[in-house]
């Protein structure tokens, strides 16, 4: 992968969802690169060594602004919220808090497809609102999302037993080539976007090969 010219000084980065499947690889990557990592938490959480917890709640905009104050950058990942009364409000709270705290830059990991318009599905619409509003909320904004599913879905508790037994059962057409993405590659893209002088406004991340179902099963 290549990236625009970058600033190599360590940053103080606050990460949403730092203990989650997508956030944890980002945290590992940022720590490995020497950045100071803060984790946004609602309650006491077991965090990776070297990560400092900072209290904040997506349903409490003032707490987000406090959590964001003084950081160099924020990595945003939204939870899967299906309640329409909360999902978009959380996205708007993030945007408002980024502005209030004067955060210089942010990277938003959509965690799914980038949908350009509101479609009436709360958690998708929340992502659209945040991705659309981010450039006006911080000085440097970058949005990343996967082109296909994550390979980690295949080792999840509901898939791994079947994979161990030689079967990949997945809700995709067997003949469709799919660019399965590893979360470590997502983390790399997030980390690069955090330090690039001019990161891409939007990146769609793909694995290095597009595999049909049988090719996927053979690769495992």
């Amino acid at each position, binding site marked *: 992968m290549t990236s625009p010219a970058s600033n190599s000084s360590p940053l103080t980065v606050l990460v949403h969802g730092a203990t989650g499947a997508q956030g944890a690889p980002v945290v590992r990557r940022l720590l490995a690169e020497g950045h100071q990592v803060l984790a946004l938490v609602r309650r006491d959480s077991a965090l990776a060594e070297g990560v400092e917890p900072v209290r904040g709640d997506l349903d409490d905009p003032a707490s987000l602004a406090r959590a964001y104050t003084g950081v160099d950058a924020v990595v945003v990942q939204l939870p899967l919220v299906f309640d329409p009364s909360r999902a978009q409000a959380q996205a708007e709270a993030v945007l408002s808090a980024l502005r209030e705290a004067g955060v210089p830059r942010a990277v938003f990991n959509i965690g799914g497809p980038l949908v350009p318009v509101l479609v009436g599905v709360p958690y998708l619409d929340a992502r659209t609102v945040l991705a659309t509003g981010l450039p006006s909320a911080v000085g440097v904004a970058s949005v990343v999302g996967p082109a296909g599913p994550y*390979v980690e879905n295949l080792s999840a508790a*509901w898939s791994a037993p079947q994979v161990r037994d030689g079967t990949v059962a997945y*809700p995709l057409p067997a003949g469709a080539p799919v660019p399965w*993405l590893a979360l470590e590659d997502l983390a790399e893209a997030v980390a690069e976007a955090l330090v690039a002088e001019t990161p891409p406004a939007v990146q769609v991340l793909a694995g290095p090969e597009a595999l049909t179902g049988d090719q996927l099963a053979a*690769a495992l």
Partner: protein
Amino acid sequence: MFRTVSHTDYGDSMVPHVGEEAGRGVAGFYAAPPPGAPGMPAPDPALVRTGPTTVSAWAARQRW
């Protein structure tokens, strides 16, 4: 062997692990659009960045 399952069956397999709402919601990503509705557009190739990790390299590091 690869086997296509419906998004509802996939959701059924997720629910015991992540809960009803999250399981159904995530599985819904894979639902076909209603008849007549436009599908998800393919990403602009100019926006696509390719990562280095192959499925086989990733799989070799897992504790299956």
